[in-house]
């Protein structure tokens, strides 16, 4: 008798194997048990770090690289020589860490940044983040009489807070504004305009001189939403921006928002945008600007570092606040959008939450912060940490802008509350606006419609900005 494997038998076998596999490697299964390492608190160790607890840090390996983090880790190691530190760096934060969050085994500190950042809305809604409030109230490393909270620049606590809880530390400080080359402006005798009328007048002069007045990254048109929202906020006051953050009905149809959208739409109508900019990504547009093909560019203060390799040595880039729209603007011309970037989080289910908090405290020390500024040419969230460091012309102009604003900085939070709203919806609406496919009024309608979609989507957790 010969034995034959029947087709049915084969299928049954395969199904059995599949069932075994499904039981063994379920994507949604997880282990909830956490053993938070905790040691005794003391003046030198206010957060109660267990001295020999291992610490795992995952860094986003983007524009800032990972070297700065290794320096922070050796500073931590100096304080806790018995702790074993595990460092890793990746560009795929979400893809790498998502399974570990599910398994209840996340690292202790995560630099949740970059294009594949893990969505904060989800992290917060799931209670996956440790409250960093304790860190804010702990004494700073440099001065035991000063709380960490009081060493931070304005806006840092706001941008990391969700429903009043401080959950994400945005370590780098970014100032947003409109960039130009001081060399170009001086050589032509142009002056940065303080009002929108002056801006339009200057654009006319610039265009007559054979240079495109503005360029912008059409493939990431959200860059050009920043001056609109900033100008609207300066004109109508911070309440205009808070209404956007809180997804209030008709927030984007406020008079100030309409006026700001009209103003920037004017650039497209009058032909003051570089032809072809609609098809550029941010690097291409910024490079055109560095090559002197366009005069103005909307960006944040990472620009200088990002363009380091292509900026001519005597270019002298500088940033300025958005021009005032009217003489009756609620905020002065000097007010600008200043906020944190490069979010660092401490997962609540990490094995060494205390160590994670302490690591952030080390980062926020003067030594940690100035080392960061030196290594990656970016300002940090820590006040005065750039003192004595020789900065490039771009960052120098940022510090000048910070000083001139005298604390009058502001920011919006909808982009961190509802990431997709800015990354996809506002981005798309701006692409249409600056390509003149829709008018300013239609832009307001379109963005409002998107905001309403978010407000009505039960799958999205809502936050309230106070």
């Amino acid at each position: 008798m010969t034995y034959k494997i029947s087709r049915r038998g084969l299928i049954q076998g395969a199904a059995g194997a599949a069932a075994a596999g499904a039981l063994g490697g379920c994507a949604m299964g997880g282990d909830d048990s956490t053993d938070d390492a905790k040691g005794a608190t003391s003046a030198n160790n206010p957060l109660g770090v267990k001295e020999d607890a291992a610490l795992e840090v995952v860094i986003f390996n983007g524009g800032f690289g990972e070297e700065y983090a290794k320096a922070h880790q050796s500073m931590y190691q100096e304080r806790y020589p018995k702790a074993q530190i595990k460092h890793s760096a990746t560009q795929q934060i979400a893809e790498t860490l998502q399974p570990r969050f599910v398994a209840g085994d996340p690292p202790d500190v995560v630099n949740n940044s970059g294009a594949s950042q893990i969505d904060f809305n989800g992290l917060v809604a799931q209670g996956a983040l440790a409250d960093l409030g304790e860190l804010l109230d702990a004494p700073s490393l440099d001065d035991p009489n000063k709380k960490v909270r009081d060493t931070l620049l304005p806006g840092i606590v706001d941008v990391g807070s969700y429903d009043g809880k401080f959950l994400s530390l945005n370590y780098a400080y970014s100032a947003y504004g409109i960039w130009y080359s001081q060399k170009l402006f001086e050589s032509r005798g142009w002056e940065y305009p303080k009002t929108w009328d002056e801006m339009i007048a200057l654009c006319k002069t610039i265009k007559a001189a054979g240079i495109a007045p503005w360029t912008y990254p059409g493939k990431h048109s959200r860059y050009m939403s920043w001056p609109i929202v900033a100008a609207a906020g300066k004109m109508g006051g911070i309440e205009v921006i808070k209404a956007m953050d809180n997804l209030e009905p008709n927030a984007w149809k406020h008079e100030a928002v309409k006026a700001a959208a009209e103003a920037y739409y004017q650039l497209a109508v009058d032909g003051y945008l570089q032809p072809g900019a609609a098809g550029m990504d941010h690097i291409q547009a910024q490079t055109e600007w560095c090559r002197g093909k366009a005069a103005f560019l909307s960006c944040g203060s990472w620009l200088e570092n990002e363009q380091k390799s292509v900026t001519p040595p005597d270019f002298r880039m500088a940033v300025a606040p958005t021009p005032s729209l009217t003489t009756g603007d609620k905020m002065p011309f000097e007010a600008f959008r200043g906020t944190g970037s490069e979010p660092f989080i401490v997962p609540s289910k990490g094995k060494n939450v205390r160590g994670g908090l302490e690591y952030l405290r080390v980062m926020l020390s003067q030594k940690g912060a100035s080392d960061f500024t030196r290594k990656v040419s970016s300002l940090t969230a820590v006040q005065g940490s750039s003192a004595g460091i020789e900065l490039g012309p771009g960052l120098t102009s940022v510090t000048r802008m910070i000083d001139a604003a005298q604390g009058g900085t502001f920011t919006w939070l909808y982009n961190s509350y509802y990431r997709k709203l800015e990354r996809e919806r506002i981005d798309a609406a701006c692409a249409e606006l600056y390509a003149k496919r829709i008018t300013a009024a239609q832009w307001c309608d379109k963005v409002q419609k998107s905001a309403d979609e978010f407000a009505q989507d039960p799958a999205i957790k809502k936050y309230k900005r106070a």
Partner: protein
Amino acid sequence: MRGKRLFIATFLIPPLLLYGIFVISPYAQAFQISGTNWSGLSPTYEFIGLDNFQRLLGDGYFWNALRHNGLLLLLLPVATILLGLFFASMISVGGRADRVGVHGVRGAGFYRIVYFFPQVLSVAIIGVLWKEMYAPHTGMINGALRAVGLDGLAMAWLGDPRFSFWCVLVVLIWMNVGFYVVLFSAAMQSIPRDLYEAALLDGASRVTTLVRITVPLVWDTIQVAWVYLAIIAIDGFAIVQIITDGGPSSSSDVVGLRLYKTAFADGQFGYASAIGVAMFFLTLTVAAMFLQVTRRDRVEL
């Protein structure tokens, strides 16, 4: 008897296990996850039945992406196969008829290699390459247009919703044609030369030979190519993500990208799995349909 059974089992079980764990189990789990509101960040979730699928029906962004996949499905296989057949027949049998008999055009060996180049590059490199080629000022395409005085045709290709999808389609055809040229020429090599010679003697034109002899005799290969290309058209994720990221204004979005963004950017793995399940059935249906439509009697040689 027993020994033989054990012998067969030792060979069968490991691959079946691997297949079960790495192929069937993820599929099965996707079905399960698609019925939940799982965020992908914690082990907690609720079963919400078919809500995700209901939401899918009313999701304009999904339908928009699906429409693009549909267009790709119509155009990509047809264009790629037609080009592939044309190039392959030129390489194999397109040459001038002379005493040597039926052969390819001059330099056929060279073309064969050149057409295969894109296949050697990784998708990521192709994506970045073309993204720069489409760049408005520094890109090669506008540069070439300007060089021949066609400044009016120089566009902001990827920044214009009228063109972005077609730009991606061109890249997809470009990167796939080479492989099918090689596939078809291999199939054409097995067609007896005397068939062509007989046809030529009867005064058949080149088009007639292609349509009446070549195509019917490589039909099996075309059929396989069709299914492969259809699957590529339903996917399209990698190239779209690199070149346009779906933009501007979702004008080049595809379902795969929507799925990826829903899962990893929006943290909605439940909904993303529902998109995946929809795609699974779509691919299955399309493959079955194509096989059915292109079914023909085999020609025995």
